[in-house]
């Protein structure tokens, strides 16, 4: 298998009559229908000049038709760029400008909202997908940057300068990961996978492609449904979901609000989690409720996909407070660097990763590439994760923390600087400093701001949230805003984050 299309074809060949996709409202499509529909849409794309070497944006809620679009884009030879349909239009527009997609498939309801940003996408083509429209950039065919010929997806994550970065994911990246997942788990066409993560989030590649590889049934859980854990509980019971991949935050919500005890969840076989640290106490609770399942802690930034894994043993070591992130996947090589930059046999340091799942770099962002995708003497590329880890006695990696000021909250990576830069765009704010700290096992983001001298009334939370939401997605909004007469400084006049942490 060389391309993701081969994965889709594999699933189709297993049993064309099996259900491929269904949504929360129980609309469904078989593999046969999926194959047929994606072929039609692929032809429409190809006949409009969309294929190898170009990118196609997709801005839609998670629906069967949005999923058909993604598969059709891949079949056409193009790469897809999923853009969060719930994010502010300014962010969508930034991503469109940066990704320079040749075409975009957009939810009909969003076309008017996005119109001012889509001036060059003047050509509108009918696609046989209800609720979606295809717009094409007619102004220029020329790529400003050359696209790697193996490019499959670009996933945008937060950037340290307040600018999202597009992580390029290749066919090879996905296939390495899918093949390994398939060996790790006991799955077949009889399994029922859930797709909880949105498509712009890296967890989605497991859901989409491991399920399709096996000819299994994938249940699409859209954003609104994912905010209702009781609905997820109900879907697990009704559709007999057996494989579930989610962030610990979501699993904790399932525990708190999912009313698991009211439903039959004995179909659960494999539960995978990633994206943040799962405290053992909450984990144990969910493990007891889902006693038919086995559990895996997966680790890997978007830039490398999953690169280490840890199968949770039946008997949990009571001395631990969190689980190790585990051993490197067979396709990944790892090494540690400490402050002295020596990669000798140290047991603790910053984790570097290379291997077939590692992204070739950020799209259209050469400056950032040079910082974190580092070539070794043999010419191979290592990704500098920024994660500080240690090796324990049994050879497992244990996550310690972020090297810089990135935090993970609810599975999303958040650069605190991006929130600061959003706040600083407010007309009455002189300066802002944002910190994150753990509070009762949760990451809490506090934004401190200093007003301009011409203005002396603290701002309303609602106004601040609304302002920030123009520039950053909802999941990045601070939990707390604090107005200070001045932002504290260190002796070298840098923002004194340490003292803010104590406030």
């Amino acid at each position, binding site marked *: 298998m060389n391309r993701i299309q081969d994965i889709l074809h594999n699933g189709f060949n297993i049993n064309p009559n099996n259900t491929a996709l269904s949504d929360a409202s129980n609309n469904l499509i078989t593999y046969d229908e999926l194959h047929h529909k994606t072929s039609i849409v692929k032809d429409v794309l190809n006949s409009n000049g969309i294929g190898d070497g170009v990118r196609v944006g997709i801005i839609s809620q998670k629906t069967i038709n949005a999923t058909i679009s993604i598969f059709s884009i891949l079949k056409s030879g193009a790469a897809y760029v999923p853009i969060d349909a719930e994010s502010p239009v300014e962010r969508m527009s930034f991503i469109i400008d940066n990704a320079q997609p040749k075409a975009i498939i957009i939810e009909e309801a969003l076309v008017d909202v996005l119109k001012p940003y889509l001036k060059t996408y003047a050509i509108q083509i009918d696609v046989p997908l209800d609720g979606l429209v295809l717009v094409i950039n007619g102004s220029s065919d020329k790529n400003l940057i050359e696209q790697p010929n193996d490019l499959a997806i670009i996933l945008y994550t937060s950037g340290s300068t307040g600018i999202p970065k597009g992580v390029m994911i290749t066919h090879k990246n996905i296939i390495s990961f899918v093949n390994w997942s398939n060996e790790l788990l006991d799955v077949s066409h009889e399994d029922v996978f859930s797709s909880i993560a949105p498509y712009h989030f890296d967890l989605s590649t497991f859901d989409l492609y491991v399920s399709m590889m096996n000819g299994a049934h994938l249940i699409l859980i859209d954003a609104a449904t994912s*905010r*209702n*854990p*009781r*609905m997820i*509980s*109900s*879907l697990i019971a009704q559709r007999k979901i057996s494989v579930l991949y989610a962030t610990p935050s979501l699993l904790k*919500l399932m525990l*708190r*609000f999912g009313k698991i005890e009211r439903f039959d969840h004995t179909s659960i076989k494999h539960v995978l989690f990633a994206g943040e640290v799962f405290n053992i106490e909450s984990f144990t609770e969910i493990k007891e409720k889902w006693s038919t399942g086995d559990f895996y802690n997966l680790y890997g930034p978007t830039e490398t996909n999953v690169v280490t894994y840890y199968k949770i043993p039946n008997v949990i070591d009571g001395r631990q407070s969190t689980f190790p992130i585990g051993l490197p996947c067979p396709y990944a090589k790892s090494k540690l660097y400490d402050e002295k930059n020596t990669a000798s046999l140290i047991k603790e340091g910053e984790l570097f990763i290379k291997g077939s799942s590692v992204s070739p770099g950020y799209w259209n962002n050469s400056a950032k590439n040079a910082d974190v995708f580092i070539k070794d003497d043999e010419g191979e590329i290592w990704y500098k994760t920024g994660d500080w880890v240690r090796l324990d006695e049994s050879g497992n990696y244990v996550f310690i923390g972020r090297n810089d000021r990135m935090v993970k909250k609810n599975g999303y990576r958040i650069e605190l600087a991006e929130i600061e830069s959003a706040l600083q765009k407010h007309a009455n704010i002189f300066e802002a400093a944002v910190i994150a700290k753990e509070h009762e096992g949760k990451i809490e983001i506090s934004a401190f701001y200093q007003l301009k001298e011409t203005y002396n009334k603290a701002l309303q*939370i*609602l106004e601040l*949230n609304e302002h920030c939401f123009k520039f950053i997605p909802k999941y990045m909004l601070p939990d707390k805003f604090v107005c200070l007469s001045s932002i504290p400084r260190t002796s070298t006049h840098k923002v004194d984050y340490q003292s803010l942490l104590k406030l």
Partner: protein
Amino acid sequence: MKTEIESKLKEYIVSNFFSGDPNSLTTDTELLTSGIIDSISALEIVDFIEENFNVEFEAHEVDKENLNSISTLSDFIIQKQT
């Protein structure tokens, strides 16, 4: 009966989620669409109702239509109780 349910709900929402002037929160104030309560607070309200009014929400009933105001919540409770 409806006013009794409504005042219980209002009391709960005011003391847990609403920071403004309690008099400005009416039974028709939009809770979710206005941002007064977020999706997690909505789930807490559902739990509060189940614990205090002896009703049970089906999974699909935890939705915007039922949760968007004190009035729609009360209607839901009454309809479930009868």
